Each structure stands twice: as C-alpha cells, then as structure tokens.
C-alpha cells in the first residue's frame, strides 16, 4: 500500500501549503458565481427559471473549460518537478516502486481536485436554492459524481504526462497546450480531419461523417456530456451509432483515466534517473 503513503503525503502537502485552500476558494467562487449569473440571466430573459434546464445544470458548459484547466494544472509538475529538483531521489530511496509513485501522485491530486469540486458544488447548490431556483437532486448528484470523474481524467492526463517527460523546461507551455487541446483545439482538429477527408474524397460521405463524430466523441468532455445525458432525466437523447449513446461516454471517461496513467507508468518505469 505504498501508493497510499504517497497519496496522503500529496494531500497533506497541499493543505500545508494552502494549495488545497486556494483550490477550494477557486471552486467556490466559480460555482457560486456561475450559479448566480446563470439564474440572474435566466430571470432577466425568461421572466422565470426555465424548468427544462435548472440553473445548476447549466454548469456543464463552463465546467468543460474549468475542469480541464484545474485538472491539468494540478498535476503537470507532480513528477517532473520532483525529478528536476532532485527530491525524487529521496522519494525513490525509500521502498516505493515507480508505479506506486505515479499512482500515489494521481490519487492524491485527484482527491485534491475532487474535494474542491464537492465543496464548490455544495456552495453552488446552496446559492441556487437561496436564489429560489429549482435544484433537481438526482441530476445534481450525478453531475457532481461525473465532475469528479472528469477531474480525475484530466489529473490522469497531466500526471501521466509529468511522468513521461525528462525536464520542466517547456512545462508551462505544455500545460497550456493540453488545456487548449481539450477545450478548443479538439473541435478544430476534428473539423480539420473532416475537411481533409472530403478534400481527398476518402470513403463515402457516411463514413466521413462517422469518423468525425467518432473522434469528437472521444474527447473527455464529450464523454462527460453524453454520460451525463444518459443519467439525466431531463435530457435523454440517444444517437443512431453506438458512440453517440450514453454508455459510450462512461467508456471514454474510463479510457482517459486509465490510458494516460498507464502510459506514464510505462514510461516512468523505463526511464533513467541520473
């Protein structure tokens, strides 16, 4: 259970350095602010709160930018930072395997982002109720759980990445690059692939459309949205192909938690630490 010692250390360090506190404040401001703004905007334009999309659930769109950013910036230095400073040598002089180090870092930082997410949602919920808007409890809970899972996916991406690289030189650019990739560039790149397929007339039109929609569905954010749709009582849409169905969203989320982490472990286990 060596990884649990490392995960605990991560959490303790974060609370000692007030990083946890800062993260919680950020989440609370985000959720309370977003809930407030959304409800006010709805009240202004609709006259009353729309029953089809309760305010708190309108958070899925801003969450799609906020969680990738927080998840990635919570983990991107976790291993390469220790490697560059040399504290990794102290850590690996102790009886921790390299796999334990990657796993422990992932779990510790996921717990960090997860607890801030929970507290943020709680405050967001309170604000929603206080402003007199509706709070559908089942949808609200499934949104919380899926947000924690989405956060974990982005922590996995950043920790896996951090375990795979040798130096911190370009780490800030890489961090921003990853955030951009998962928030904006994914869509742009998918469209680009679609254009290329059409330009060179590769496959039938259906095939081209399927490729584009499949790649789009692989984005963790899309996975989050479609998993949420399948849980939500309000929004039960099902596509004509399997990757547009709700369950596929869970597969996508699981993929983004397991694969980056496994890749990071694989790389980290083979690297030379000098």
């Amino acid at each position, binding site marked *: 259970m*060596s990884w649990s*010692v490392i995960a*605990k*250390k991560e959490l303790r*360090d974060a609370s*000692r*350095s007030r990083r946890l506190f800062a993260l919680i404040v950020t989440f609370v401001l985000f959720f309370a602010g977003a809930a407030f703004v959304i409800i006010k905007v709805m009240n202004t334009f609709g006259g009353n709160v729309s029953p089809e999309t309760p305010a708190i659930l309108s958070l899925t769109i801003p969450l799609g930018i906020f969680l990738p950013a927080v998840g990635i910036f919570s983990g991107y230095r976790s291993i390469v930072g220790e490697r560059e*400073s*040399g*504290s990794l*040598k*102290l850590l*690996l*002089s*102790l*009886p*921790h*395997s390299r796999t*334990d180090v990657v796993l422990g870092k992932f779990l510790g930082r996921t717990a960090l982002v997860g607890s801030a997410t929970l507290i943020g949602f709680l405050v967001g919920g309170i604000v929603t109720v206080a402003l007199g808007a509706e709070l559908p409890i089942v949808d609200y809970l499934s949104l919380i759980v899926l947000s924690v899972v989405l956060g974990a996916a982005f922590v996995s991406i950043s920790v896996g990445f951090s375990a795979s690289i040798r130096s911190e030189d370009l780490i800030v650019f890489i961090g921003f690059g990853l955030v951009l990739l998962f928030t904006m560039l994914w869509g742009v790149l998918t469209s680009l692939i679609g254009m290329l397929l059409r330009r060179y007339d590769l496959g039938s039109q259906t095939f081209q459309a399927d490729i584009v929609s499949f790649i789009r569905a692989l984005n963790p954010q899309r996975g989050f949205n479609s998993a949420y749709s399948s849980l939500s009582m309000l929004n039960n849409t099902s596509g004509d192909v399997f990757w547009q169905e709700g369950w596929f969203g869970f597969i996508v989320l699981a993929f983004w938690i397991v694969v980056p982490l496994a890749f990071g472990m694989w790389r980290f286990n083979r690297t*030379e*630490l*000098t």
Partner: protein
Amino acid sequence: MTVIKLDGITKKFGSVTALDNLDLTVEKGEIYGFLGPNGSGKSTTINILLDFIQPTNGQATLFGQDVHTNSAAIRDRIGVLPDAYDTYDRLTGRQHLEFTIESKGASDDPMELLERVGIPEAADRTADGYSKGMTQRLVLSMALVGDPDLLILDEPSTGLDPNGAREMREIIMEQNQRGATIFFSSHIMEQVEAICDRVGILSNGTLIAEDSIHELRQQMDTKTTLTLVVSDVTPAVVDAVQNCTGVSNVTTGNDQISVSIADGSKAAVINTIESSAVELQDFSTSEASLEDLFTAYTTEQTEGSA
C-alpha cells in the same frame, strides 16, 4: 553472507563508457570505502544499486536479489544518502522523518534521530532554510530510519565542516557496530582511512585497486620523504646523499634536498651531510599520505591508459 555483488557491470551513456566491466563484492558487516576522483563512476555505480539507472551489461544484486526486479523490497532494507538530491522545501525536518518512517513502516522517534545527527533545534523549521551541512545531516537521519541492514552513502561528508565529518564517521562506526554493512563513496582518501575495512579505488569506470588501507600502502611501496635544509646545495653533497643505502628519488631546491628513504635510512643520510662540507641547518620528515597514495594510483592509471 554477500550484501553487494556487482558482476561484470558495464554502463554506457551514448558513446561514453562510465563503468567498464566492474566486479565488486561487499560482505555483511564490512565498511567499504568506494574511492575515486569526480567523474570516475562512483555515483553511476550507486545509481545502479538503487535502480535509478540500469546497466548496459552485467548483473547487480543486493542481499542476493536482483536490484531491478526486487528494487522496492531491497530499498526496504537499506538506508540511502544519495548524491544530487533535494529535500522538500516546504516540509520541516520532522515532517521529512515522519514521511520516511511511514514509508518504511518503521517506528522510530523523529526527535531522537534529529538529536543523533545534531540538528534537534531545526526539527520544526522548513528544509528550504537549512544549510548544506544541515540538509546532509537531515538526509543521513532519514537513512538511519528503521535500522537498515545496509547503508549506501554517496559522498556523505559533502557540505560538512571537519567537526561534522568526524560526527559522520562516528555515526558510521556506530551503525556498523549495530551490524549494518556500510558502503560509502568519497573522493577524499582521508575520510575513509580511519574507518574502512576495505577500500576500492575506481578510476575511469574500472576498479584499479581493492584492499585494506595497510595493504594498499605496502603495494605502492610508498616511502618517507626526508627534507634537508642545508647552507649550500653542492654537486658533491647531492652525490654523497644519493649514494647512501635506501635513498631514492633525490630532488634539490635552492637550499634544500629532498629524498625518499626506506625505513631506517634517515640516520645515514644525516650523518653523510654532517660529515660533508655543507652545514645541515634543519630537516624534517613526512610520511606519504594516503592522498599521495591515491594520487599515485589514479595518475598512474591515467598515464597508463594515455
């Protein structure tokens, strides 16, 4: 019982050969001094033992277990003071020890360990404020957690003043008496002289000598140097000195003559000068230091390979 065994270890970094077919064995209970100039491959060897890097060829075992496949289990039994490490800036000395104790599943008292290495007053200060010497003491105390069977110390005296280096040696002796095997590297011969059972001298990735300090001294046939201060360095007196039995390697300065002498030849040299035309004003003797011995070994090797 064999604690450390390196069997034909070669390590190449690109086209550079850091270790060349190195064989080395350390038995239980030994204090082994691993000597060599900077860049000779000492840290590379230790990095292989800790599985930070893997050898290009050969096998390394600790306690009879492969260092790569059983790395975490092995590290449960050893205490390490690595080179080029950094502490956790924001953790205090006590927190470093608490984490180490938890990682090893040990039950040591952090304060007791900090007292042992002489920094109890720094227990609740964060490590970013520690001096190099204090940091080195802290990491040594971490290495002592759980009474390890083997201590691997890479240049343990780095950053320590002479007093600190002496305390470090005392701790090494104590740990050895408790039953621990000690493997430590140094580029300073003086530090290993007093405490090592055996010394290995590494140069350019090869072990060029390995024995007890006493045996090494004998092998090198090092002699005492006698320096004579005289009123005038005449060819006649230099000739006379050179002809004494047991004298070799005569060098002359402005008003002095230095000779290497075998045991018991000093009186003959002094008598020769006193019976000559020049006046003997002063003389002194110095025994070859281990530093000279070390230099002799490593330069001989370099010249030999050049």
